[in-house]
């Protein structure tokens, strides 16, 4: 029975059924399914299926967003219940921001949302983030990965500058660096010495997992 209910929960995430997720989660809790199992065996599987469909071109951005919202609504109910026993450790700490001179935030926000959905702790520095602010935040927050977004070909050089500032501050060994944004390509990432690049938010999650040596896949 539990399996069937968990699969309905995964399905609700996949279909972005925000209004019904709360009842399903409460039902699962009433059946004494542990919160962690609801997350891992239900919600996360649904979200993974969303990623697969998005990459295949069968799902579109608004659908991904509604699914992520549905998952977040369920996690909000479950997380307080986890505190008492099993706390979920985040997969890793991700620091994200749009580089200096660039105020585009939509892509960055979607990536943040997908990372949170996948279990990362995300710290968002916002837009027009100077190299100094990135460096300062790395010192303070000690993230595993730093993600830099640039939506203009003219602000791409700021990714390079920020990377250089991170190196100059002696922090390059402590973090993995990912770059993204519409004009950014894998070649550019390689050229400036970034560790990873992703063409979209779903791939960004996969790349982040890969950089931390976590197995990426459907569960």
């Amino acid at each position, binding site marked *: 029975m539990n399996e069937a209910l968990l699969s309905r929960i995964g399905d609700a995430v996949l279909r972005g059924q925000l209004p019904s997720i709360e009842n399903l989660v409460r039902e699962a809790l009433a059946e004494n399914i542990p919160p962690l199992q609801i997350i891992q065996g239900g919600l996360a599987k649904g979200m993974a299926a969303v990623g697969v469909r998005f990459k295949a071109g069968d799902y*579109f*951005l*608004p659908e991904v*967003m509604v699914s992520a919202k549905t998952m977040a609504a369920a996690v909000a109910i479950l997380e307080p219940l986890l505190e008492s026993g099993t706390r979920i450790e985040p997969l890793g700490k991700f620091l994200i921001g749009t580089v200096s*001179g660039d*105020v*585009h*935030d*939509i892509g960055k*926000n*979607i990536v943040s949302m997908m990372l949170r959905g996948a279990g990362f702790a995300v710290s968002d520095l916002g*837009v*027009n983030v100077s190299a100094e602010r990135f460096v300062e935040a790395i010192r303070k927050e000690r993230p595993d990965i730093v993600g830099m977004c640039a939506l*203009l*070909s*003219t602000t*791409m*050089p700021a990714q390079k500058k920020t990377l250089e500032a991170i190196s100059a501050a002696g922090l390059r060994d402590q973090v993995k660096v990912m770059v993204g944004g519409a*004009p950014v390509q894998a070649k550019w990432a390689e050229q400036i010495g970034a560790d990873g690049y992703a063409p979209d938010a779903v791939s960004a999650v996969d790349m982040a997992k890969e950089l931390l040596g976590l197995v990426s896949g459907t569960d």
Partner: protein
Amino acid sequence: MQIVGELINTSRGAVHTAVDNLDAAFIQGLAAKQVEAGADYVDVNAGTFVGKEGDKLCWLVETVQARVETPLALDTPDPEALRRALAVHRGRPLINSITGETGRWETMLPVVAEAKAAVIALCLDDAGMPQSAADRLRVAGKLVRGLEGAGVSMEDIYLDPLVCPVSTDTSAALAALEAIGAMRREFPGVHAICGLSNVSYGLPKRRLLNNAFCLLAMQQGLDAVLLDPLDRSLISLIQATQTLLGKDEYCMAYIQAVRENRLT
């Protein structure tokens, strides 16, 4: 409706390759096709050549103008690249573009003022991406006053409301549309321009949304647009909409376009 042909942009792979190889025939062919299809300006953008943008932009200006008489839209946020492109451009170009962001405003304004050219001004300032129509109008006011103060005439200002995707905010298109209407009422003489592809980001069959947005924006007073002039169905829709909006005396332009087999 003034049409800015958007195809000569190095973010398109084939154009990047052509510019890289100094393939003049390819670029000139693309320019001529857009002009034949009705482009009033031919946009040239070499933004992917980081560090060499100025050289490439100048080459594009000279190459395109060796073939067509149409003025160009000089598409760069870099004042130095712009200055050089202006120096080799014949006639009166459209500068694409200035914004209200402090750094960009201060460095671009002297170049724009000196050029005595038309200019696209994006409704963007240090407050970041505008959300509402009111945000856009506030920035538009600052831009118009600042440009006027620098000696740019109202008729040379093309305000771009900044169109955001509906996929991440379903009120995004409406905010831009309302801003276009408000700008045209508030600043008589000033033009309203925008690109069409942002609105459909993240959605399937993007062209359908782009085209519908264009027609709605025209109803609000959009009188210039960046688009692919080779898209005959869009050009046809725009002509039909002009006629419906009372901008085609005796419907003559429409009839003429049909006779010349330009509409689909």
